[in-house]
């Protein structure tokens, strides 16, 4: 079960958000999706979640173009606050349970408990960080085949970041793949085993991190600086 991206392109008017992007997401891996702002990471994630239509090429799941149905297998955690304003933390869980067969309310409650999210509180009254935790708890309570996590640590304190990272590591298995987009390169380096670098809407590199360390003696952060600034570290 591979999530394949084949020559994917996305244009917004004259702006080319993605150009000829091709790579595969294989189960059993945790991927870091790295690149500066506006490099196309979020556009690719939204395309893989069937939220953005490609201008050319596309993303395939089990050989078929992604569509609404494939969202049953692909969990997407967006950066945006998207819950309905009338929802409580508990109602968010119920909503996910209503639509996703792989959602575990018990796991959601456990994650909310760990992250100290009050179940009866309205989501709109939560702080930015607490809302981010709620989004992460909802996404990580699914037993999906692919997790696309767009900036899951944005606006979250260090301890909560650890909790989310732990939930990611607990969820990761040989049967699923996790893709984490983040600017905190050093922080996710120990958790991921592959890295895909985006620059100007293109894939600049697709690397195995162990190989990177063994062959080039470089850390993920070093490689990031090299690829994005063109400087040899």
């Amino acid at each position: 079960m591979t999530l394949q991206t084949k020559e994917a392109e996305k244009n917004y008017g004259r702006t080319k958000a993605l150009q000829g992007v091709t790579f595969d997401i294989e189960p059993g891996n945790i991927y870091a999706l790295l690149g500066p702002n506006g490099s196309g990471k979020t556009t690719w994630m939204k395309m893989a979640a069937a939220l953005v239509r490609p201008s050319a090429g596309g993303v395939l799941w089990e050989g078929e173009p992604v569509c609404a149905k494939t969202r049953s297998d692909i969990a997407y955690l967006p950066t945006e606050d998207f819950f309905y304003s009338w929802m409580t933390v508990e109602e968010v869980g119920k909503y996910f349970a209503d639509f996703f067969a792989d959602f575990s309310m018990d796991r959601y409650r456990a994650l909310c408990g760990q992250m100290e999210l009050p179940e009866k509180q309205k989501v709109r009254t939560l702080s930015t960080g607490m809302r981010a935790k709620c989004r992460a708890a909802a996404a990580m309570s699914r037993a999906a085949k692919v997790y696309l996590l767009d900036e899951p640590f944005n606006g979250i304190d260090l301890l909560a970041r650890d909790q989310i990272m732990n939930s990611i590591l607990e969820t990761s298995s040989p049967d699923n793949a996790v893709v984490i987009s983040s600017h905190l390169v050093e922080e996710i380096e120990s958790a991921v085993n592959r890295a895909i670098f985006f620059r100007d809407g293109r894939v600049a590199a697709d690397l195995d991190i162990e190989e990177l360390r063994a062959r080039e003696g470089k850390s993920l952060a070093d490689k990031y600086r090299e690829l994005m600034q063109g400087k040899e570290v």
Partner: protein
Amino acid sequence: MTKLLHYEFRKSRSALLALLVCTAVGEVMLLLGTALLPQGIFLLRGEPDLGGMPAFLLLVGSGFLSLCGTFGVMLCSLMPVWALRRELNSDQGLMLFLVPENSFAVLGAKVLQNVLILAGSVLAYGLLALLDVSLLAVRGIGPDALSEVIQFDPAGSSTWGGFLPSLGMVALSWLTILMICLFSIVLQASFFRGKRGAFWISLLIDLFLILLILRADSLSSGGTGIFSALINCGAVVLLYLASGWMMERHVSL
């Protein structure tokens, strides 16, 4: 679809509750006015003196109910339209478009909610009107008046049996207009997204569609017959299919 429909109603809950409360207030006033009415008042010769309080309660109550039954229902049935506009133009759309339901189901739930609100309103307000007029007739004239109520001619129709289909036709026409609004919103979020003057172009397309349907409608006899109903049903189906297709193929969040 059932779950989508459930959440569509949840989104409109406040508006529907407000409508229900206003209807209840109007109904209570009307019933009180009826109860306070002197027995057999309409049998007296000349201009009947209803008395200050009953007349006030009947007037305000019936006014309230008329407003609820028309503008209230119209506003409530507009809720899915507003919700779709918000969802296609804000982050909240992710709530709807992250779930494994295709655009036809998403849109279908909104249209179905509209149909249920309109059908429910026609039925509920129709029955309420029948009940209120019956009670008023029994109180003001006597039990014998009930048979006359059944033969009542509320809108130039021969009987209540003719009035309800007329009301249904109004609801169907309103549904067509709502469907045009949904189509326009999807059009703005798809082909015209980010384009200058998108709103005005969509508005012109809207007006054109309304005029087209009205023109087709006028070809039927008086616009209230089977032909008119078929034209409206056809328009609703076509607009639903076109909107669903645009949402499925051309909307990016």
